[in-house]
């Protein structure tokens, strides 16, 4: 199997566009939650989300395009017929709302997930395959895993993988109806007093290439993707397995692929860390299963504490954050941590970033239905 490398990225969060905005907010341990102005929040239990502001979200097609432009620009990469465009998205829900309200001029086709991959491919001039991955909070991580499989097997030489979610009322209302949103105005992953998640704006794109192709064109890899894995809980349609079984299995697959089955070389984990009652202890137990007695010494943080939950974009944005940890030698903190929870007793890098010489970082995600993913990056 061939090696897969990352040669460029673009990212946008509630802190703004680009890596420096992520450094300022996520690595600064500053959260971006505020009352949202995008819709009337009176019917809901909370007013808060992490957004870039404004009366309505930008079109997902534009945000995906900006991130992909930044990614290919950084990589010095030109997409072609051998480039796949794989996007984690459930479609543009703001367009759905406008359609249901009977507004004129709605880009209703953008509510079809694959349409956003088609548009991004056209923008990039990529004439290869285009797919959207729709499996919720692991969607963009699954897109990256699929790209790694395509590239490592020699089916393709390159892929642009992206994901986007911008806070809008459709999903806000759904999460509110499921009583999943925090009422406290911030989220507190791994804290004893955590009470749920809040949504956030997020989008990112990465350029993945075979190491051979990157070398051939003189590109400098930012990181190698040395392991990837996915696994399911076989437990419940909404709740995670209480022992984090599927998460541990996904990480196990990634680590075996990377030739480090016990995770001895993992220096940092970007956790899923949603701050829900069930997720955080399950994730803790899953990581303890993976790392054994070393679990206390592996730093683990939830950057959703600053960005909010980015839904379909979570996987690719958090991979970019992990990449920055690798390149900058700084671990992003779990912000808003108050009282420790004995069921979440990992080193969660509380409240302040930490310098560290990291060579391998793991980014993990989980979703409804018990779907779990793991991506392992290595410094070149």
């Amino acid at each position, binding site marked *: *199997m061939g090696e897969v490398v990352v040669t460029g990225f673009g990212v946008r969060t509630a802190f703004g566009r680009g890596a420096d905005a992520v450094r300022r907010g996520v690595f600064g341990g500053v959260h971006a939650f505020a009352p949202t102005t995008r819709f009337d929040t009176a*019917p809901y239990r909370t007013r808060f989300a992490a957004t870039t502001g404004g009366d309505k979200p930008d079109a997902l097609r534009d945000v995906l395009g900006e991130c992909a432009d930044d990614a290919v620009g950084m990589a010095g990469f030109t997409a072609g017929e051998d480039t796949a465009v794989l996007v984690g998205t*459930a479609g543009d*829900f703001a367009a*759905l*709302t406008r*359609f*249901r*309200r009977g507004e004129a001029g709605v880009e*209703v*086709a953008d*509510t*079809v997930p*694959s*349409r956003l*991959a*088609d548009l991004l491919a056209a923008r990039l001039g990529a004439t290869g*395959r*285009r*797919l*959207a*991955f*729709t*499996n*919720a909070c692991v*969607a963009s991580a*699954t897109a990256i*895993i*699929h790209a790694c*499989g*395509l590239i*490592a*097997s020699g*089916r393709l030489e390159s892929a642009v993988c992206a994901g986007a979610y911008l806070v809008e009322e*459709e999903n806000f*209302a*759904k999460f*509110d*109806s*499921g*009583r*999943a949103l925090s009422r406290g105005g911030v989220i507190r992953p791994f804290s004893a007093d955590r009470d749920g998640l809040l949504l956030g704006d997020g989008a990112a794109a990465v350029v993945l290439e075979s190491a051979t192709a990157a070398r051939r064109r003189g590109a400098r890899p930012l990181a190698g993707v040395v392991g990837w*894995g*996915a*696994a*399911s*809980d*076989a*437990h*419940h*349609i*909404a709740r995670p397995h209480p022992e984090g079984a*599927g998460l541990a*299995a996904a990480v196990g697959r990634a680590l*075996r692929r990377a030739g480090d089955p016990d995770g001895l070389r993992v220096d940092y984990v970007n956790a899923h860390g949603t701050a829900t009652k069930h997720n955080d202890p399950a994730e803790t137990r899953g990581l303890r299963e993976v790392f054994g007695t070393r679990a206390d010494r592996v730093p683990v943080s939830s950057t959703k504490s600053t960005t909010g939950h980015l839904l379909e974009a979570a996987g690719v944005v958090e991979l970019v954050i992990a990449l920055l940890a690798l390149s900058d030698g700084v671990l992003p903190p779990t912000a808003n941590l108050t009282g420790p929870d004995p069921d979440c007793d990992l080193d969660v890098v509380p409240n302040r970033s930490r310098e560290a010489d990291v060579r391998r970082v793991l980014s993990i995600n989980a*979703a*409804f*239905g*018990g*779907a779990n993913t793991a991506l392992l990056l290595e410094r070149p």
Partner: protein
Amino acid sequence: MTTASSAEPLPGFIESTFSPLVNAVAHRCLVEHPGDGTRTAVVLGSVVGDATTTDLASTLMVGGQVGNPLLFMQATPNAVLGYLSKEFGITGPLVALSATADLGFELLDAAAVLLDDPELDRVLVVGVELAANDRATAALRELDVPPPTEDYAVALLVDRDSPAAEPGGQDLRQLAALAAQNKGSTP
């Protein structure tokens, strides 16, 4: 391989036929051909997805009505995939995707990529489309894709001995026909 255009209701899922259809075809496949769930993955494909659930939730929200938590639960394809994974002890990857063109090919190709993993032996491939509602019809017409006029689902099990996916022009009905022609290698 199995197909369905109607299905019994599925406990915990309401209003939409999307998840019951997926469950019906997948259930039949997996019951007829039991295997090791720890070495099984699932790939689910649909161009539009569960428009019935999505649009019902949207209509409630736009109308200022209280959302139904069950619609929240079933709003993503992960829900029925999670249901199936529990039912059959499937602990391999769960993938859900959408492609505007050649969805059948993309599903088979995704299965082939998954089977590169030596820890997997078989992949349950499921394709599903619902009869297009007003929003799906408008969207698909913009994309120059004929809107489906009836609910339809197909499932097939792909294993290492199955033929490789041939590129080009496979929609879900062609996928079903392909599977029917290769009964020896697609259980």
